[in-house]
Each structure stands twice: as C-alpha cells, then as structure tokens.
C-alpha cells in the first residue's frame, strides 16, 4: 500500500467562518431552534412575573390583644423614610437664626439585664454603643419632623446626625472620650442655625471649636424648637422584654448652656408620647447651672426589626426569581449535556476545533439569554408589583430609581451568571440530571437553609450585616443580595433579618460571589473539555 497525501475535501476555513462571532451565531441558532428551550425561557420570565401576584398579597398581619388588628402607624420623616423618633426633649422655641451651646459633663445609663421576679425589667448601670445625649434643633415636637443634632454617644464618640438617616463623626473620636465625658473633661457641643443651614461644632474646652458637619434642612420653618435631649438608643439584646426602643435609658448632664436668644425656660416633652410603652417616661431635672435629661427611645431610621409598620419591601416583587431560576438552569445545563447525549458534541468540535472558543461561545449565548430573560422579567415584575404593593400602604422603605435599576440589572446578571454556572457544571459532569441537581442545590437550597439551624438562626448580636449566615455568604445564592431594597445603617444596632429582606452581603459583593463560582466552574470546564475525549 502506498501512502499519499490526501487533501481533505471541503470548503476552506474563511476568516469570516473562523471568527468568534460566527461561532456565537451558530450556537444561538442551535439554541433558538429547540422549541422546548425557548419555551423554558419564556416560562422563566412568566414565572417571575406571575409570582408577583402571590407575593404582593399582603393582608394585614398584626395581632392585637383581641386577635388581628390594624398595624400601628409607622412614623415617617423627611423624604418618607420610616423613623424611630421617641425620646425626651427639653426645648424652647426660637425664631430665625440662632446658636445653642452646651457642655455635656456626664453620659450614663441603665440597660435591661433580665426580668425581676414580678416580671418588671431588671436594670443595671451601662450604656449601649449608640446611647446618646446632646443638643438638637428640631422643627417641632411631633414624630418625624426635620432635625439636626450634636451628641455624645456611648462608644461612638461625638457625632452630628440629622434627618434620621445621616451621621457624621466628630474629629478625633478616640476611645478615651467615647461616652467617657466627665465634669472635669466635658465635651462642648454647638449648633448654629443660619436660614435652612445648620452647622455643628465640637470642642474640648469651649474655646477652640472644630467643625463637625453642616447640612441644609429643606423647608425648615422660621420658628423651631431647640434644646437638649437624651435617648437610650434602639438596641436589640436578648434581654429586652419591652420594645427594643426601651431596653436602655441614657442620662445626660448639661452645663454652661448658652443661647443666642432670650431664654424662655425649658419645656419637657416625651416625643412620641409618654405612654408609648415606655416603662418610665423621660425626665428633666434643673438645678443651679445644671440640667439633667434622662430617657429611653431613639432618634434613628426605622430599618431592620426597628421597622414597625406593615409596608412591604419592594424586593417582594422579585420573590419569583427562584421559580424562574429552575427552568433556566435546566435549559442552560442541557445546552451542553444534550450535545453529549446525542453525540452532537463531536460534530460541534469538528466544526470548531478550538474547544475553549466553543465553550466561550456557548457561555456567551446562554449568558445573554439569561440576562435578557432576567431583565425583562424583573422589569415586568417591578412594573406590576410596585402598584400592587403600594395598595397595602407605603413601601417599608422608599426606593430610589437608582436602586430600582440595580434590582432590575442585578436580576438579569444573577440569572445570566446562574446560566453560565449551569453550562459549566454541565460541561464538567456531562450528565444533565446531575448538573441540574448540583446547580439547583447550590443556588436555590441555600436560601432554604438560611432559615434553618445551619445559619445560626438565633440572632446572636445585632447590627448591620443581614440575616441568613454563611448559606447566603459563600454559595452562589449570595447573589440574591442584588435585589435588596431596604437599607442598613451603622448607627442603628437593630437585627436585620432575612425575613425582612436583609442579606448578609452588600448587593454587588453578593453578585461577585456568584461570579466567582461561575468563573471557577468555567475554568474547570475549559480544562476538562480540552483534556478529555468528547
């Protein structure tokens, strides 16, 4: 037998056919011509959108002494944000511009440590990190009115806070001065009102002043209330038997009070009412040159479990994401496993011998399909869901357009990356049932486990960092955090539970975790695809 060179018959590989986009186009043709797959993607969109009607069915769920009752109204502040606004306010009216100065010579407090035999809360001396006392300029004494305040806190130093959500630290908040004010080492605070602008200053000696912050309170009335306040702070400890507002009582002692207007004497008001479940109303004691204010309560945003209304988080509109994920995962895994099952992979690899590029083309197509499906579904779900949720009352937290955009684009990205992950796992295990199961177990199941004992379901402490524990931190399910529509605040040590829509990771950080999984799986798939026989 003689050997001779055989020129393979066939059309030459033109540059156009060698291009990556040609491959993408070929894969797209494969995808769109399988009727079942297209239907599954439509089911993904329909499932996410349709679940809105279930998730937004929000009949009132508050329980009073005699059965179900209307939920207590949640006070709201400027911009419609829900607020905790319950504290003792020693105030006097001031019209026009003015300045108030005071030296805080003591900040002490009591915290609840358990229950006495008769069921009354047992208190012991102590302060929480955000227990506070200081000076405040507030539009009026009703809950939720605009304000700006300078304060000394339990262990967060001097702060300027305004309109509930804003917090700025004073200069040099060393551990030494944290709450540790004394008669010999007081902290001087000053607020200056000039029109709608309020500026806060801080001083160690009453002579050398340092600027802490300046803010504009829009639409501030000409006459406002200015004075002294104390608030124990909202703190969710496991000892708390009352509302978490009332676990801690702070007592502030003020001296050297300077007013730029003719003093009219102090009026004491329990903002939020004296009978708002408060064990002991706030108190005001005046003696020669010294004023002492003591109170439970807090002035803060009502986020996490501090929120007491029956408004819903906008995130609820996207609760159908899981329903959409499952058909998408099935299709994405089959996009490669069907090739193995039918032997089509050999044809595909003959046509595109560079295996990495074939995988990249498939990932591009399935990722784009997932992204568009997520984008369309989330847009529809928010468009339908927002009005439905608003029927029950204002949302738990007002959502900016930017946040809504993040939720929509994030849902698209979440689905896209999940599809790529399923494709990669499908390439690795080459069996559809196994691939689908692995991906569903790592993406859908963690959300279920997050409510169970694995996540450490007991809230051990409190503070920012939402619920769910590690199942929603290290698995691809972490990406659900891109849908979070409620904010967290470092100055509010509430519990931020998963059931209220709080995730343990920041929105984009959670998505990054999912991306890392997909990237790792894709890398392994690439290696195996190159090394193994098809």
């Amino acid at each position, binding site marked *: 037998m003689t050997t001779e060179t055989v020129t393979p018959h066939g059309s030459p590989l033109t540059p156009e056919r060698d291009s990556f986009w040609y491959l993408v186009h070929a894969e797209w043709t494969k995808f769109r011509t399988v009727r*079942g797959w297209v239907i599954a993607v439509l089911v993904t969109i329909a499932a996410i959108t349709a*679940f809105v009607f*279930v*998730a937004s*069915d*929000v*009949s009132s*769920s508050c329980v009073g002494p005699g059965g179900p009752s209307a939920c207590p109204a949640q006070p709201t502040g400027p911009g419609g944000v829900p607020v905790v606004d319950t504290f003792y306010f020693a105030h006097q009216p001031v019209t026009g511009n003015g300045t108030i100065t005071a030296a805080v010579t003591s900040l002490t407090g009591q915290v609840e440590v358990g229950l006495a035999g008769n069921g009354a809360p047992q208190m012991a001396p102590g302060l929480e990190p955000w227990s506070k006392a200081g000076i405040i300029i507030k539009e009026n004494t009703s809950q939720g009115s605009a304000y700006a305040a300078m304060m000394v806190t339990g262990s967060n130093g001097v702060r300027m806070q305004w309109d509930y959500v804003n917090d700025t630290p004073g200069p040099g908040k060393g551990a030494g001065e944290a709450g540790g004010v004394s008669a010999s080492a007081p902290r001087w605070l000053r607020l200056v009102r000039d029109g709608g602008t309020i500026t806060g200053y801080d001083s160690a000696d009453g002579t050398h002043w340092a600027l802490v912050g300046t803010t504009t309170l829009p639409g501030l009335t000409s006459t406002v209330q200015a004075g002294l306040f104390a608030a124990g702070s909202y703190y969710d400890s496991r000892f708390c038997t009352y509302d978490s507002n009332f676990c801690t009582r702070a007592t502030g002692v003020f001296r050297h009070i300077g007013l730029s207007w003719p003093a009219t004497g102090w009026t004491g008001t329990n903002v939020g009412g004296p009978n708002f479940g408060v064990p002991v109303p706030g108190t005001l004691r005046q003696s020669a040159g010294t004023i002492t204010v003591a109170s439970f309560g807090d002035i803060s945003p009502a986020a996490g479990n501090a929120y007491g209304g029956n408004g*819903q988080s906008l995130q*609820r509109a996207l*609760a159908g994401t*899981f*329903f959409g994920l*499952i*058909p998408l*995962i*099935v299709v994405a*895994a*089959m996009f490669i*496993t069907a090739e193995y*099952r039918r032997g089509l992979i050999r044809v595909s690899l003959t046509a595109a011998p560079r295996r990495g590029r074939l995988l990249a083309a498939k990932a591009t197509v399935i990722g784009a399909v997932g992204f568009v499906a997520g984008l369309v579904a989330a847009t529809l779900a928010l468009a339908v869901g927002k009005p439905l949720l608003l029927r029950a009352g204002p949302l738990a937290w007002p959502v900016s357009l930017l946040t809504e955009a993040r939720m929509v684009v994030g849902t698209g990205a979440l689905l896209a990356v999940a599809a790529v992950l399923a494709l990669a796992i499908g390439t690795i295990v080459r*069996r*559809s*049932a*196994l*691939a*689908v*199961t692995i991906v*569903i*177990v790592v993406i*859908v*199941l963690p*959300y*279920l*486990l997050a*409510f*169970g*004992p*694995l*996540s*450490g*379901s*007991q809230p051990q402490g409190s503070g920012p960092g939402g619920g769910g524990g590690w199942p929603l931190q290290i698995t691809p399910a972490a990406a659900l955090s891109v849908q979070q529509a409620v904010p967290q605040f470092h100055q509010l040590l509430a519990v931020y539970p998963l*059931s209220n829509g709080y995730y343990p990771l920041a929105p984009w950080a959670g998505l990054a975790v999912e991306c890392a999984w997909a990237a790792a799986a894709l890398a392994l798939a690439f290696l195996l695809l190159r090394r193994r026989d098809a």
Partner: protein
Amino acid sequence: MSLTARVAPPRYLLGQALHAAVQALRAEWTKFRTVAGPSWLLAGAVALTVAVGAAAASAVRCQSAKCGIDPAMVSFTGIDPGQAVVAVAGVLAMGNEYSTGMIKLSLTAMPRRLTWLVAKAAVLTAPVLAASALAVAGAALAGRLILPGHGFTPAHGYASLTSATDVRAAAGAVLYLTLIALLSLGLAAAVRDSAAAIGLVLGVLYLFPIAAAVVSNPALDRHLDQIGPLPAGQDAQATIGVHSLLLTPWQGLGVVALWTAGALLLGALALKFRDA
C-alpha cells in the same frame, strides 16, 4: 389471540401475569445492580445527609429551657440536600431508559408496560429504603453524639433521644426519602427527560417552602406549608411541638404519598398511552 384468552383457564392467566412480574423484577434488579451509578448516588445521599446533619448539629445552640429547637429537625437538616440526590437516583432509574434508547428494548422484552413500571418502582424502592435508613440512622446518631454538648440536655427539657416520638420521626424521615425517590421516578416517566424531570422534582420540593417564606398572607402561607411535599414531610419528622404543627405526622406523610401517587399515576398514563 382472543381465542386463546377465552379457552385458557383463569388460573393459568394469573400465573402467567405473576410469572411476568417476577421476570420483570429480576430483569430490573439485574439492570439496577450492574450499573455503578445508582450505588454511587445512594452512597452520596447517605454521606451528604449525615455530613450536613452533623454540621447543623454543631452549629446550633440551645441556651435555655425554652429554646424551642427540635433536635430531630436539626439532625435531619441534611435531608434537605440529601433528598436531591435521592431524587436524581429516582429520575435516572427511568430517565436513563429514555436517554440511552434502552426503553425500546425494555418494552419489547416486557410488553406489559404497567407491570414493568411497577417492577421498576419496586426495584428502586428496596435499595432507596436501605440507603435512607442508613442516612437517617447516621444523622440521628451524629445528632445524638453532638447535640447534648450544645445545650440539648435533660435540664433544658431534652430527655433521651430514643423515645417513641424519635423513632417515629426517624421512620417518617426514611419513608419520606423513599417516597421522594418514587415521586421522581413517576415524574421522569411522565416527562421522559432526565433534566426536565429533575428540575420539576426539585422545583416541587424546594419552591413550596421558599414561597411560604416570602408570602405574607397567613392563609396562603398555611396552605403552602400543608400541600408542599417538603414541609409536609418535615411535619412527619418533628419531635417537639407536634400538636401545634399544621399536619399530624402521618397526615404529613400522607400528603407526600399523595404527591408520589399522583406522579406515578401520571407516569403510568404516559407510559401506557404514548409511544415510547
């Protein structure tokens, strides 16, 4: 054909059917035990159930007498992921017939399709029952070893972990896993595609509790927890607060059994009336 049927004595017919059933059982059992996949899957299900259960038991703490944590539910946390693997075993028992084209051969050799399906289900049941018993026993043992060190002591109201209630919970868990395998087999017979079937099974299992977690309408929430196979099955595994559950343990297992019966019925109908 009809002539033979008329003249043949009924006893002979019954014997023939019985013979066919035994043949089908033997054939299916040979298929099952000569493929490595199912054994690996069931071993994986056991390992996953025990490992995740032990991890959950290590993570949980009971601080006081009123902590209200069910030690059985903690030990059996591994059933959440473990059932997915059991479901894969159930789906593949049928799905592989279709994906390999073996179904044509099987039905040629065994034209009585329903007999064949019953034989397949029976052959799946035995090893799954054994593996489930192993998994549940392992998880319960792990819980028994770990939990007393984490506050689940007699002082906190957790006496022994081998009372009649605990045995009932363990039996409930074993039966639950077996029913899930059969549910998966039935759905795979109905949709005839492994990937679609496993998606469907895991959707039915996991989506009910997730929907119940996000739904705020209390009536709807209760119904979702009553009709979903996973929450209903969990009611069969509970050991404390059983009286406040939505379903009694056997009702819970009954709901799962209804799902399984429905899936097997769908599978039987599809098998009987469609071309393979």
